[in-house]
């Protein structure tokens, strides 16, 4: 079993990296660009998701009771029937008093709007908010059941967001497909770039490789420096791409905050909340593309 000096192998790798000079620099820059654009797509998708999901809780059905007040027993019985329905995850009861209070809190800046209402003339109803899980068909079946007057005569209205949820789901999927495809293309380009860089590095050292083969070098010994060089390229590209994300994201975050003010129409996740995802993402993507690219190139161009 041959025992190679780790420091010797590493020094060979870094010598190779510096010897390739402009070629190494070019691959770092191209890989950085691909990582940066991929990262941008990733961040856009993430923020779109956050915004789309925050529009509403879409797997909710709101059931409003009749205006005639129900007794506590009737309410309990209704609750028990609801929780037993298939695909129901939770049932939340809101009394008409709570509903009035909630509205008062919501319109605290304009108290005069709700001042005239009290316990006697409360215009709200008891509400059951049901969250569910399952397929679209499950949701439709559940709705059908809730809207059945024979089963639930206590409800005057049942409101769902199924259509909105479906539209948003389709929108999210479309966005994911478009951006995902772009990302895949960029990853493919990165892999090809690394493959070419490694191939060029191999070509520039073909004589050295041939001598090593004649002497009895293992494929691993010959390939190791190229792999380390490639991963080092990936590391530098990942660090630069991360810094670019940090700068541009914070700049755009500031710009959007200044323009949308406190309205909160567009919600942008602060970079401080996601920096580790970005760091890990670019690093993993970079290492993966470098590993795959160099592995393909090495197995193709280095023969033992």
């Amino acid at each position, binding site marked *: 079993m041959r025992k190679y000096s780790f420091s010797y192998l590493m020094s060979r790798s870094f010598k190779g990296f510096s010897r390739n000079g402009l070629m190494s620099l070019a691959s770092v820059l191209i890989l950085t660009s691909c990582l940066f654009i991929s990262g941008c797509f990733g961040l856009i998708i993430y923020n779109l998701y956050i915004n789309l999901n925050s529009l509403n809780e879409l797997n909710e059905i709101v059931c409003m009771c009749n205006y005639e007040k129900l007794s506590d027993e009737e309410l309990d019985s209704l609750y028990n029937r609801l929780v037993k329905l298939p695909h129901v995850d939770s049932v939340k009861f809101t009394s008409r008093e709570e509903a009035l209070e909630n509205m008062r809190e919501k319109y605290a800046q304009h108290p005069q709007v709700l001042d005239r209402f009290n316990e006697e003339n409360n215009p709200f109803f008891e509400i059951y908010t049901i969250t569910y899980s399952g397929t679209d068909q499950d949701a439709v079946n559940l709705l059908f059941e809730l809207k059945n007057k024979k089963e639930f005569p206590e409800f005057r209205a049942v409101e769902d967001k199924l259509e909105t949820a479906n539209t948003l789901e389709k929108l999210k999927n479309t966005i994911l497909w478009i951006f995902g495809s772009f990302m895949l293309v960029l990853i493919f380009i990165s892999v090809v770039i690394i493959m070419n860089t490694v191939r060029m590095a191999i070509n520039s050292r073909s004589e050295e490789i041939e001598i090593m083969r004649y*002497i009895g070098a293992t494929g691993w010994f010959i390939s190791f420096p190229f792999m380390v060089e490639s991963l080092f390229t990936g590391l530098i590209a990942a660090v630069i791409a991360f810094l670019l994300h940090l700068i541009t994201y914070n700049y755009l975050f500031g710009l959007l905050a200044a323009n949308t003010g406190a309205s909160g129409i567009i919600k942008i996740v602060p970079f401080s909340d996601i920096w580790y995802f970005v760091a890990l993402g670019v690093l993993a993507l970079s290492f993966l593309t470098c590993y795959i690219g160099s592995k393909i190139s090495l197995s193709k161009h280095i023969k033992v």
Partner: protein
Amino acid sequence: MIEFRHVTKTYRSAARDTTVTALNDINLKIDDGEVVFLVGSNGAGKTTLMRLLTRMEVPTSGSLVVNGYDLRRIKKRRIPEYRSQIGMDFQDFKLFSKYTVYENVAFAMRVLGKSSKAIKTTVPLVLSMLDISARANHFPLEISGGEQQRTALARALVNNPKILIADEPTANLSPSMSREVMDLLVSLGDNGKRTVLIITHDVKLISNYENKRVVKFERGRIVYDSKHAEVGADA
């Protein structure tokens, strides 16, 4: 021991859509410790033979067994181990211009994973044996052709190979230097512990070594083998 049995090597020329036969039905047995000159003009098949011996190429047919390794069936992972038993001396030396003489020789040991301690002990010994210790810290371009050849030889010998193959070792040297290098190569096999194969087209030079075996190639075939002179005594 090296044994070629009906070895044929052909190459496919995709451009011309033809097959070129580089070696044709070669039968050759070389015992351990022999010094053999492999001679022939360009295209005779000498280099193909060298590439087969170093397992850079695989015979198209026949069998080639070297020191117990069947080179047609050898597993890929065992090829480096096999090659480490062969020292290769190239026609154009193939020295690294950015490495000193010492580093060029040490490189061969590093490739085989030898320790720094072993390198520090062995390299000076080999350099001294080949009389180039004084040039240890010089770069290849700073030394003469003969010294470059000695450096290349030192690199080939530093791992103490069982077989030494010298491919046209005098091609780039002056006549006086050629004789000196050839004497050195022949002497390396004289103790009988190492097989030395010297590939050359300089028939005049090898006439100085009358007691050594000469195998002559022509168009991929052996036309003369002094050990079995009857094979091609007319050659």
